């Protein structure tokens, strides 16, 4: 199944936007506030678990993901994380927003926070591991046809397809478990090269695509 934001290869999106040189960093003041709120909320909730934030983005409904532009999506995801950890009760933001525009609505009581039990073993996502990489540059590999219930960073359009290891990248925490506060499980990451015709069929434009895939996303091709 393709999650809402897993857009690679999705059809029906029409023309791309034309770049403009003088685009402001934030199109509107609220975008800048939503950006900062999301960054700071992430820290409050989870000690900067970026994977948990991305998982919150993945769980958004389509209108929350697409209709309020990029930083709206960030705001909705931040809200979801704050409700998950009972920093905010469900409905709190909605109620406050209605009060702000003059409606007489009752606000839900502040709950007892229930933050995830989480302590990163280091800053950022890079980690050292004791074992050597399972794959080497030049190895033929296949992205597993996984259908995980939870978070993953294996794009839908690469699943089941064959490629070749192009670079071995440093080991990093595995988003699939880390996003759920189920451990860092660091593993090597591989830049894997795919031929466009392997991904999209014989009529595809000829080009090469690379993705960074965690070791457990890959299986050897013999």
């Amino acid at each position, binding site marked *: 199944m393709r999650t809402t934001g897993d857009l690679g290869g999705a059809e029906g999106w029409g023309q*791309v936007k034309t*770049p403009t040189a003088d685009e402001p960093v934030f199109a509107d003041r609220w975008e800048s506030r939503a950006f900062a709120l999301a960054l700071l909320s992430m820290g409050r909730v989870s000690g900067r678990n970026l994977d948990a934030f991305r998982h919150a983005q993945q769980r*958004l409904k389509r209108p929350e993901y697409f209709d309020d532009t990029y930083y709206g999506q960030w705001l909705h995801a931040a809200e979801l994380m704050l409700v998950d950890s009972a920093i905010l009760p469900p409905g709190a933001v909605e109620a406050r927003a209605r009060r702000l525009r003059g409606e007489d609505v009752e606000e839900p009581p502040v709950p007892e926070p229930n933050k995830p039990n989480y302590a990163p073993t280091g800053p950022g996502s890079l980690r050292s591991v004791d074992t050597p990489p399972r794959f080497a540059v030049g190895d033929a590999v296949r992205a597993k046809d996984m259908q995980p219930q939870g978070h993953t960073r294996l794009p839908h359009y690469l699943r089941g397809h064959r490629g070749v290891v192009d670079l071995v990248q440093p080991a990093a925490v595995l988003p699939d478990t880390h996003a759920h506060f189920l451990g860092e499980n660091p593993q090597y990451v591989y830049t894997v090269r795919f031929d466009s015709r392997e991904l999209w069929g014989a009529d595809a434009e000829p080009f090469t695509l690379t993705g960074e895939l965690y070791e457990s996303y890959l299986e050897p091709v013999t």
Partner: protein
Amino acid sequence: MTETTSSERLPIALRTEALEQLLTERGLVDPAVMDKFIQMYETAVGPMNGAKVIAKAWTDPEYRARLLSDGTAAIAELGFKGSQGEHIVVIENTANTHNVVVCTLCSCYPWPVLGLPPSWYKDPAYRARIVREPRAVLAEMGLELPAETEIVVRDSSSEVRWLVLPERPDGTDDLSEEQLAELVTRDAMVGVAKVEAP
């Protein structure tokens, strides 16, 4: 978004204001800290940083070699590091090979060198289509590549971040490093444009 009781969707600006108020009241967020974050990404962290990296690589062959072999360290030499720049890989565009970067899963982007991503990079159409028909998408964006140029699309699906080292345009031999940096655009460092001579 949670427990929405009516079908009406509240304006996002109002929702943002509400969340800021709720977190500020409880001392969880300090608006002054928010201001600092915002100001940093509006003024100090942006494509002008990446442009300095590229201009230095164009004028200093040893730096260029370091940049291509360990991007993160070479970029840190110029003082650029931080969030979304833990491991930056720099890849060179040449007459034969053209790299272009995307994040199909969200909008991962090398913040320390390019700042926050522009709207076209975050747009679903770009994220969906550049991995399927890059030549057509680049042409829509104004970059027509010769048929013989090999296109390599880089989908940023992990914490690895890509920075494109564009080709130095012809006719720029007399320009200083500072003048060259002014030519380098954000779009060229993502790979949807080339750097043009002045």
